[in-house]
């Protein structure tokens, strides 16, 4: 399944041997993957394996040290400031904790991108906001301040904001972190529903395998900055790759070591000879 060929012409995002270093630390090491258009793709990996970096590279907020990141066939690195901003208008991003503007109400948060990019009259903005909020089931919460929202609601508002500009690609950064099972199910359901209803391409960065495997079409596994496996959810479930198995079964120790590299325990305690 590691060799599964990807259809290059149908890829929204393509990474061509991308390496990203933060100082001396290699976050991504020679990564080549592609994300299929119109599907929900999940990117799995433990904490600190470069998943968020992946999203930031797609959004052009970080530039790769080597290699090319392509969005809809265009190299992000080769874009001018204007082209990059035009490309970003075609992307939506849902941050881990929503990243709502704390000084604005729910309603103002949702229409923020519309206010910035269009000259639509107030009445139409209002209707659009109501429609977007209705899509996430929060039409009644439009006059609340963001501080009055629960974690799950905040993420749904952020989702309404992310789809305000009708993007083609939407990226979710850890959408399930810190949510109760009901809220998790609600978000998962929304991700799946929106993808079908709006014809989006979705990228889901997460370490919540159980929920995600039910809604995604394709999975990519990251470990230590490299892609260690990819395939459909069924293929992943049956994978005999030890890294993936450890991840699926939640084993404490395995190819992903429990211990941070250290010197010998006994000699560290001063016991060794």
């Amino acid at each position, binding site marked *: 399944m590691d060799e599964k060929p990807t259809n290059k012409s149908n890829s929204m995002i393509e990474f061509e041997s991308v390496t990203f270093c933060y100082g001396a630390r290699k976050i991504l090491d020679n990564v080549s993957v592609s994300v299929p258009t119109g599907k929900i793709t999940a990117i799995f990996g433990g904490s600190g394996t470069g998943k968020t970096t992946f999203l930031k590279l797609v*959004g052009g907020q970080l530039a790769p040290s080597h290699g090319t990141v392509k969005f809809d066939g265009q190299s992000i690195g080769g874009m001018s400031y204007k082209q990059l901003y035009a490309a970003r*208008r075609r992307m939506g991003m849902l941050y881990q904790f929503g*990243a709502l503007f*704390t000084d604005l109400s729910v309603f103002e948060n949702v229409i923020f991108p519309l206010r910035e990019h269009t000259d639509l009259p107030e009445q139409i903005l209002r209707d659009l906001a109501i429609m977007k909020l209705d899509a996430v089931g929060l039409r009644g919460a439009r006059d609340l301040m963001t501080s009055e929202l629960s974690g799950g609601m905040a993420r749904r508002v952020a989702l309404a904001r992310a789809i305000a*500009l009708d993007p083609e690609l939407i990226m979710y950064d850890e959408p399930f972190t810190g949510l109760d099972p009901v809220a998790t199910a609600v978000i998962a359901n929304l991700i799946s529903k929106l993808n079908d209803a709006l014809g989006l391409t979705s990228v889901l960065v997460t370490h919540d395998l159980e929920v995600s495997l039910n809604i995604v079409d394709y999975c990519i596994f990251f470990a230590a900055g490299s892609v260690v496996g990819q395939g459909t959810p069924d293929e992943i479930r049956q994978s005999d790759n030890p890294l993936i198995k450890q991840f699926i079964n939640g084993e404490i120790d395995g190819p992903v070591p429990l211990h941070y590299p250290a010197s010998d325990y006994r000699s560290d305690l001063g016991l060794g000879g």
Partner: protein
Amino acid sequence: MFQRGVVAIGRLTVNGIWKIGAGTAFIGNVIARSKMTFARPRLFINEIYFAGTLSLIIIVVSGLFVGLVLGLQGYETLKRYGSAEAVGTLVALSLVRELGPVVAALLFASRAGSAMTAKIGIMKSSDQLSAMEMMAVDPFQRVITPMFWGGFFSMPLLAAIFSAMGILGGYLITVVVIGVDGGAFWSQMQASVDFQGDILNGIYKSIVFGFAVNAIALFEGFDCLPTAEGVSRAVTRTVVTSALAILALDFVLTAFMFTGA
């Protein structure tokens, strides 16, 4: 031990130079992306509210008290030499030349500057700036630059209000309370306060301070570590660095303005 000291000095120097360079680039960036601020006055007005109006109370009250103290102290000293009427001159010159711009800027740094740093820092640490960027909205143009110009515009006005309130405070305590002759108070003041040399120079000072404080506050906010602790440290740094910058700049400006020809 000695070696470690040298290393620490070296690191401080490198960090300092890096900060100056990054700060200069940052401010260049802010000014270069000013177009939206002036194309959308709403952004600018909101930031004047944020930086100026919200600092108004502290400026008015502090100005009044500084004036009261100056008037009282000045009167006590000057009356020994029989020139109590000169208290107006003393109060006005100290305020217009030094205390007005300097104290107003210090208050501005602790009231508005720290709030700016905190706001930017929180927006950064909660991914709001990044989210804005991903919505294809430049956070520089939309958030940082309007804040800069709002604060820059507010500072001289706040300094003028501070000086005016201080002089009124001096008038209150010496003329109304103590009973110094009011006519002499104003006329001596007017005779010795020069519009060009004293008042305009004071305003120039407050413009320079306003530039420095706003630049420092926004840079510290933008540069902070995106954590709660990082934000609180950045706020502290804003107040400390601003205070040092104000006092150092004040010395340099005073040396240029009020000495020699």
